[in-house]
């Protein structure tokens, strides 16, 4: 009786965005035009052009970064920080974006100390390392690795395979955990930047409540809740308050 061979088929994943070549050319032209405006010091026109790109549905870290630069030069600190943050979301390990974001933050009036909790710093570092897709992809890789090694363990004897399976499986579990965290953070955490010069933050959703403090342009905060035209926001130190929706823009 002949032994039938079991064949393992690994799926091939293709990650290619589908963009029509025609609009691509227009977009690239607009992008270069915007860059030229920036070079000539016409920051407001540059801002307009970059926004046209965004209106077309383009979502690219480079565009956000350049728009952030244009806003910074046009002395709109809040918007600059907003777009640097948007850029960083798409390209979390980009040095230029990080440098400019940190530089812009020097001009923000409110100096908010970030959390000093070591474990949360550690978690933030890991979660800020990559995008949702990067985390998903890495998890998938280790998932495939684990299953293939698992299959191999059925048919081949040897410590090496078993050990690599253990390592692969552990990494898969860890990555799965971080991916879930990253996904939930990306979908639940709504962050925003103050884009008006000053905003008064109240203890409740209305001006009749006690004025708690005043936030300034460029202040980054987390949106916890919304009611009518107000957001309940929180700052890293646990400070909470309500501010009008018009004062901030979501990242």
């Amino acid at each position: 009786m002949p032994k039938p061979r079991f064949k393992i088929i690994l799926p091939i994943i293709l990650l290619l965005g589908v963009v029509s070549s025609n609009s691509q050319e227009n977009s690239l032209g607009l992008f270069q035009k915007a860059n030229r405006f920036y070079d000539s010091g016409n920051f407001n026109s540059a801002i307009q052009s970059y926004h046209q790109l965004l209106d077309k549905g383009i979502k690219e870290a480079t565009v956000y970064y350049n728009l952030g630069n244009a806003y910074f030069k046009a002395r709109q600190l809040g918007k600059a920080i907003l777009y640097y943050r948007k850029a960083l979301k798409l390209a979390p390990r980009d040095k230029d974006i990080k440098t400019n974001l940190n530089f812009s933050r020097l001009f923000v009036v409110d100096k908010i100390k970030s959390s000093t909790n070591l474990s949360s710093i550690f978690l933030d570092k890991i979660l800020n390392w990559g995008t949702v897709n990067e985390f998903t992809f890495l998890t998938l890789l280790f998932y495939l690795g684990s299953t293939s090694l698992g299959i191999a363990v059925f048919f081949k004897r040897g410590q090496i395979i078993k050990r690599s399976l253990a390592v692969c499986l552990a990494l898969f579990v860890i990555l799965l955990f971080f991916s879930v965290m990253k996904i939930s953070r990306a979908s639940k955490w709504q962050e925003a930047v103050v884009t008006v010069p000053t905003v008064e933050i109240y203890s409740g959703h209305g001006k009749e409540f006690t004025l708690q403090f005043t936030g300034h342009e460029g202040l980054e905060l987390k949106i916890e809740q919304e009611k009518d035209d107000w957001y309940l926001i929180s700052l890293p130190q646990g400070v909470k308050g309500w501010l009008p929706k018009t004062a901030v823009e979501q990242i």
Partner: protein
Amino acid sequence: MFYRTAFLILTIIFLTVQIGTAQDISFSASVDKTQVTVNEQIVLTIQFSGNVQNIPLPKLPTLNNFNIYSSGRTQSFSFVNGQVSNTATFNYVLVPTATGQFTIDPAEITIDGKTYKTNPITITVTQGASTPPSTQPALKPSTPSKTQTTAASGEDLYLETSVDKKRAYINEQITLSLKFYQAVNLLRSPDYTPPVLTGFWVEDLPPQKQYYEVRNQRRFAVTEIKTALFPTSAGKKTIGPATLKCLVENYGALFNKDPFKIIDPALLMRQPQEKILTSKPVEVEILPLPEKDTPANFKGAVGRFSLNTSLDKKQTEVNQPLTLKISLSGVGNIKSLNEPVLPQLADFRIYNSGSSEKISKNNYLVQGSKNFEEILIPKAAGKFKLPPVEFSYFDLSSRSYKTLKSKPQEIAVLPGAGYAASLPSTLNELDGGVKDINYLKTKVKKLGKEETLLYRKPWFIALQLLPLLALGFSWRYKNHLDKLQTDVVYLRNRRASKLAKKRLETASRLLSEDNGKEFYSEIAKAILGYLGDRLNLPSASLTKEDLNRELGFKKFDNNQINQVLELLDTCDFARFAPASYEKSEMESFYQKAVSTLVGLEENWSGN
């Protein structure tokens, strides 16, 4: 501070001795006592002061009922506030010669053609003590205690304290008056110990008043010092006694020794005598401020105030300072006023640049204004409304709290000279000398649009099942392989139908070859082999009884078992009693065997 000033003023006053007013001429007469017995001495003091260079002797009235002795003249010069004051005191000793009420007529003095008169003084002379005055002093000529009581008695010098009100609120002004009554001359400036004023905020109330007051027919020079007291806590308080240590001329010693030896030069040396004056302590009751309706920003101000604020400019740039002046004025304890509550100004750095006071004490009421200066440095550009500055105080006239609010002001803050202006000074350390943002990114391969996240794509989710399925299949296959190797029952079970099928195929071939004997033998092998494998029994030794029993255990119905047994019987019969093999009979038997095996296999798989 207050004590020292008070002491200094007192010192000056006593040194110049009873000046009426420095500018004007004052001319007065007084006696040390108005009630005397016969042969007791009265000291008449006639005092002249004024900006006069040479003071002539005053002209004494004719005194019929008194013997008059002049006891000398003292003169002093004072130079106060550019005013020269020349004071001369003429002392006379009067010894009444008769009893009754006598009036000492005014003395007169003429300066530059102008005549000045003193006030008349009434003196009552009684019969006096039984003890003749001449004998006792002779016995105890120099007992100081004796002389002290007879001489400058409490009547000559008084120290009195009084307050304008006995009940006051915390921080309400109480005016304390300290009056020093003086009917005799002092040899030198007195040592003054001010009253103990614990529990009060003390505010000096100049000017000092000097005037004459007639008490019990005697003329006293009164020095009055007023002090404003602001109680700091509630409850009963005692304003402690003030003491004054003075040296007075010992007239008693002078005269009582021997009235007839007045001219003795040794006795003309005045023997000083120490006198300690103590005022009575004064009790006051301090009421606490009402607790009801106390404003949140009340900081203890009591009185009547008004609030005013002003900004030095309405428009500025980021980091360019503004000055906010807050002025509080009114009646009350100005010095202790706390700064009014500043509104919340998160957009400004606020520095207190100090306060200044202007205090006037008109009508002995502490009043004035206190100015606070705040430096506001805007942190961000924009239009800001400076909310009102609030100040609360306890109004004494209405006995209620009042809150003052200034007018809100608007400030326009323009953006500064640029980011550089607001750069932290430690930037170089912070960012390794970074002065500007990094340049644009210009290299771009393509501009991607927003895409559905990987984990949300249906094909991605579906893909997750594939490795799991593969894993499941391989697990099952692995199990199968393991059983084949280790489990005979499993192996025989697995191969039963396959072998039966093979044998039936052989039987079918033999049928077509017309080999009847082999055909039946092969069918029997197929059935017995199949059942042996399935039941895991050796097929060679299977008996009908065994089959009947075993198949019964496996819950096959009798019909099926009988069919099997019937088939086996037919085979045995055909094999061991060979006759003619009918082809049609063989074919129908083959069909029957196949259907029986199929039925068995169905039953087995179904189990």
